[in-house]
C-alpha cells in the first residue's frame, strides 16, 4: 500500500487510540503507586448504593429507550410517518445532553411548568411542594432525561439500518399472511435491524451508566452516580484523591463491560421467544391496537415533552418576576440577556472554535480513512475507531487529565479540541461511511477512462458530489463537540469556559433566568448548524436536479 494510504488508515487510529491509551495508563498509575494512608474507593460509604444507582439508571434507561425505539420503528417503518419522523429527529439529536436535562428539569421541578399548570386548581399548592422530584434518590428523573435523549439516537440508527432489510416488502408479506403491522415488523424485520443497533445500544448503555453532565443535573446527590463521584474526586487539588478516582474509573469500566456482556448473552432470549411465536403462527391480532396506542402515546409524549422543555428554557431566559403557581411570567425582560452577553459571547467563541477545530480535523481524518479503504478494513481496526462511543468518559479522561497536567498541555484550546476529536471522529465516520460507500464507483471508472487520476476524481467528483452528507457529518461533529462536558472541564482545567461547562455549572445554582439563557444558546447552536448543513447543499446545487436527495 502507498504511504498516503497507510497514513490515511493509521491517522484516525492514532488520533483516537493515543488519548485513550494515555488515559487508561493515567488511570492505572495512581492505583499502582497509591501512597499508604491514601483514601481508597472501598472506604467510601456510598460505594454500594452509588454502584447500584449507576447500573440501575443506565440499564433501565437503556432498555426503556430500546423498547420505545422498537415500538416507534415498528409503527412507522412501513408507513408514511417515516419522512416526518426523520425531520423530527435531527433537532432532537442535535440537542446537547445538558440542555435537554436542564429543559426537563425546568418542566418537572417542584416549581416547574407542570406543577404551575396544575396549581393551585388541581393540586391545591400555593407554594412549590417540598418534594424531591428532581435529583430524586431513585434516579427516575435521570432515567427520564436519558430516555428522552437516547430514543432519537437509537431511532435514527434504526432508520439508517432499515433500507438494507427490505422492511416495506417484509411488512407487506407479513400483512398478506394476516400479521398486524407492529407484530409483523417484530417477527420479520427487527431480527435484521438488531445487529446494526448493537453498537448504538452499547453506546447508550455505557453513556447512561456513566453520564456526568446529566447525572449532575438530574441525578441524585447523596450518593451521586459513580461517574459523577469519580469526577468529583478527580477534580480535587490534593492528588491523593486521584487514587479513589482511578479505582472508581476502573470499577466503572468493569461494570460497563459486565452489562454489555450480559446484554450479548441475554439477546438470545427474546430472539428464541420470537422464533417460537413465529412457528406457532400467532398473528398478534389482539395486541396490535394496544401496541399502536402505546407507540403513539410514547412518541407523542416524547415530542411534546422536549418541545415544552425547550420552550421552558426560552421563556425563563426572558422572564421578569414570575411567582409560583402562575403559568406565565408577570413581565418579560431582556435585562438578563444584556447582562450575560459579554460572558456569553466569550464562551460562544470558545465553543465554536473548539467545535470547528475538532470537526475540521475529524472530516479530514475520516475522508483520508475512507479514501484509504478504512471502511473495508478488518473488524478490529473498525472497533478501535468506534471505541470512544462505548468507553465511558469518566474511565479514561481523569487519567488523561493527570498526564496533560504533567505535560503542561492542560488548559489550552488546542488540547481540548484534540480530546473533543476523540469523540467527534467516530460520529463523523459513522455519518459519512454509508454515503461514501453508496457513491457509484463507475463514475470513477468513467473518469479514469477520461484520463482523470485518483486525486482529480476525489476533488472534482467525489467530494462535491458528497457535499450534502459532508455537510451533515460536519453538523453532527459540531453537535457532538458542543455537547461535550467532561473533556472540556477536565482537559480545559477550568480555564476554558464553553456554553456547556457554564450551563452545567449554573445548574447547581438557582438562577433560572441565567440557566435558560446559557442552556438555550447551547441548544440553538447545534440546531442552527444542522439548519445550515441542510441549506448549504440545497443552495449550491439549486440548478442541479440530479443532486437533489
Amino acid at each position, binding site marked *: 500500500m502507498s504511504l498516503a494510504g497507510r497514513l490515511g488508515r493509521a491517522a484516525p487510529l492514532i488520533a483516537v487510540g493515543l488519548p485513550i491509551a494515555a488515559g487508561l495508563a493515567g488511570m492505572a498509575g495512581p492505583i499502582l503507586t497509591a501512597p499508604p494512608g491514601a483514601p481508597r474507593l472501598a472506604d467510601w460509604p456510598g460505594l454500594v448504593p452509588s454502584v447500584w444507582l449507576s447500573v440501575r439508571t443506565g440499564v433501565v434507561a437503556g432498555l426503556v429507550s430500546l423498547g420505545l425505539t422498537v415500538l416507534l420503528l415498528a409503527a412507522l417503518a412501513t408507513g408514511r410517518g417515516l419522512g416526518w419522523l426523520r425531520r423530527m429527529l435531527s433537532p432532537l439529536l442535535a440537542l446537547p445532553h445538558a440542555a435537554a436535562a436542564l429543559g426537563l428539569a425546568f418542566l418537572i421541578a417542584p416549581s416547574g411548568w407542570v406543577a404551575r399548570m396544575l396549581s393551585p386548581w388541581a393540586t391545591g399548592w400555593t407554594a412549590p411542594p417540598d418534594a424531591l422530584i428532581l435529583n430524586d434518590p431513585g434516579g427516575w428523573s435521570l432515567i427520564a432525561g436519558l430516555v428522552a435523549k437516547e430514543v432519537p439516537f437509537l431511532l435514527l440508527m434504526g432508520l439508517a439500518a432499515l433500507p438494507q432489510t427490505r422492511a416495506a416488502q417484509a411488512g407487506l408479506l407479513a400483512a398478506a399472511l394476516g400479521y398486524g403491522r407492529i407484530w409483523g415488523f417484530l417477527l420479520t424485520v427487527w431480527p435484521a435491524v438488531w445487529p446494526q443497533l448493537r453498537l448504538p445500544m452499547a453506546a447508550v448503555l455505557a453513556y447512561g451508566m456513566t453520564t456526568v453532565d446529566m447525572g449532575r443535573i438530574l441525578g441524585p446527590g447523596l450518593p451521586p452516580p459513580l461517574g459523577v463521584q469519580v469526577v468529583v474526586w478527580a477534580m480535587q487539588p490534593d492528588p491523593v484523591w486521584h487514587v479513589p478516582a482511578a479505582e472508581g474509573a476502573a470499577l466503572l469500566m468493569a461494570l460497563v463491560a459486565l452489562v454489555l456482556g450480559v446484554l450479548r448473552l441475554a439477546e438470545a432470549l427474546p430472539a428464541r421467544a420470537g422464533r417460537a411465536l413465529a412457528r406457532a403462527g400467532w398473528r398478534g391480532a389482539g395486541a396490535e391496537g394496544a401496541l399502536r396506542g402505546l407507540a403513539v402515546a410514547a412518541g407523542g409524549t416524547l415530542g411534546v415533552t422536549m418541545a415544552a422543555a425547550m420552550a421552558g428554557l426560552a421563556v425563563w431566559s426572558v422572564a421578569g418576576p414570575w411567582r409560583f403557581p402562575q403559568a406565565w411570567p408577570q413581565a418579560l425582560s431582556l435585562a438578563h440577556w444584556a447582562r450575560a452577553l459579554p460572558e456569553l459571547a466569550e464562551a460562544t467563541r470558545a465553543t465554536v472554535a473548539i467545535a470547528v477545530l475538532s470537526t475540521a480535523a475529524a472530516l479530514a481524518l475520516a475522508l483520508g480513512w475512507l479514501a484509504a479503504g478504512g471502511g473495508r478494513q478488518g473488524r478490529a481496526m473498525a472497533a478501535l475507531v468506534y471505541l470512544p462511543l462505548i468507553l465511558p468518559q469518566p474511565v479514561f479522561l481523569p487519567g488523561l487529565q493527570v498526564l496533560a497536567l504533567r505535560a503542561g498541555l492542560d488548559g489550552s484550546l488546542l488540547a481540548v479540541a484534540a480530546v473533543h476529536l476523540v469523540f467527534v471522529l467516530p460520529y463523523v465516520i459513522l455519518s459519512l461511511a454509508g454515503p461514501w460507500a453508496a457513491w457509484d464507483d463507475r463514475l470513477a*471508472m468513467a*473518469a479514469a*477512462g477520461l484520463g482523470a487520476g485518483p486525486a482529480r476524481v476525489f476533488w472534482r467528483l467525489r467530494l462535491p458530489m458528497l457535499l450534502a452528507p459532508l455537510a451533515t457529518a460536519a453538523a453532527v461533529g459540531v453537535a457532538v463537540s458542543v455537547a461535550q462536558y467532561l473533556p472540556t472541564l477536565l482537559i480545559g482545567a477550568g480555564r476554558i469556559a464553553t456554553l456547556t461547562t457554564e450551563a452545567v455549572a449554573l445548574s447547581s445554582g438557582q438562577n433560572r433566568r441565567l440557566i435558560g439563557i446559557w442552556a438555550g444558546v447551547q441548544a440553538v447552536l447545534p440546531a442552527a448548524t444542522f439548519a445550515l448543513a441542510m441549506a448549504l447543499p440545497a443552495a449550491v446545487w439549486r440548478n*442541479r436536479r*440530479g443532486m437533489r436527495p
Partner: protein
Amino acid sequence: MTGLSIEALTIRRGPAPPLVSLSVTIPPGRVLTVMGPSGSGKSTLLAAILGVLPEGFAMTGRVRLDGADLTALPPHRRGIGILFQDDLLFPHLSVGDNLAFALPPALRGAARRAAVETALVEAELPGLADRDPATLSGGQRARVALMRVLLARPRAVLLDEPFSRLDAGLRLRFRAQVLGRLAAAGLPAILVTHDPADAAAAGGPIVDPQGRPLG
C-alpha cells in the same frame, strides 16, 4: 503493431476454472463483440482491460495498446475510454463542464471553450453548455456521454452494454452514431452486449469470455 491486443489473458477467482481466457487482437476501427450470460465474466474482462479489477481476482497475461504494454499502468494512464449502460454524466457539473472534464489540461482558454462548443454541435446540442445534465432527454444524455469519451482522445474504447437502457428507436440511432464515430476515428473497441442485433451491427468477430467464437 497497432490496435488493442489481449495476449493470453486469464482471470480467475479462487481455484475454479478461469472466468476469462482470451487471446485476440482488435485492429484500429474494428469492434470485438463479447457475449455471454450474466456473471459469465464480461464485465470482469472490461475491468481488467481498464485496470480496475476488484480484489479477489487473479489475472495473468497482458494487454497491449498500439504495441505498448498497459498491464502495469494505472487506469487513467491507459488511454482507454468506457461507455456504460448508464450515461454517468457527472450530476453536479453542467453539460459543458462534463465535456470540458475530458479535455486535456494543455488546451486552455478560448480553444478549450471552442472544443466544448464543437462537441456540443456534434452531439446536436448546440449552445447548451450551461444546461443541467438532469434536464436533458435520455438520448441527449447518451450523446453527451459519447462525445465526452471521444474528447479525451482515447486510443481504444470499451462499450459496456451502452445501448441497453435506451428504447428501440433511440437505440438504433445511437448505436449507429457510436459505431460510426469509432470507425471514423479508427479506434479499436470491445462491445459487451446481450443483444445479437448489436453484435451484427458491430460487424466484427463475436466471442464469449472464454474466447470461443459465437458466430
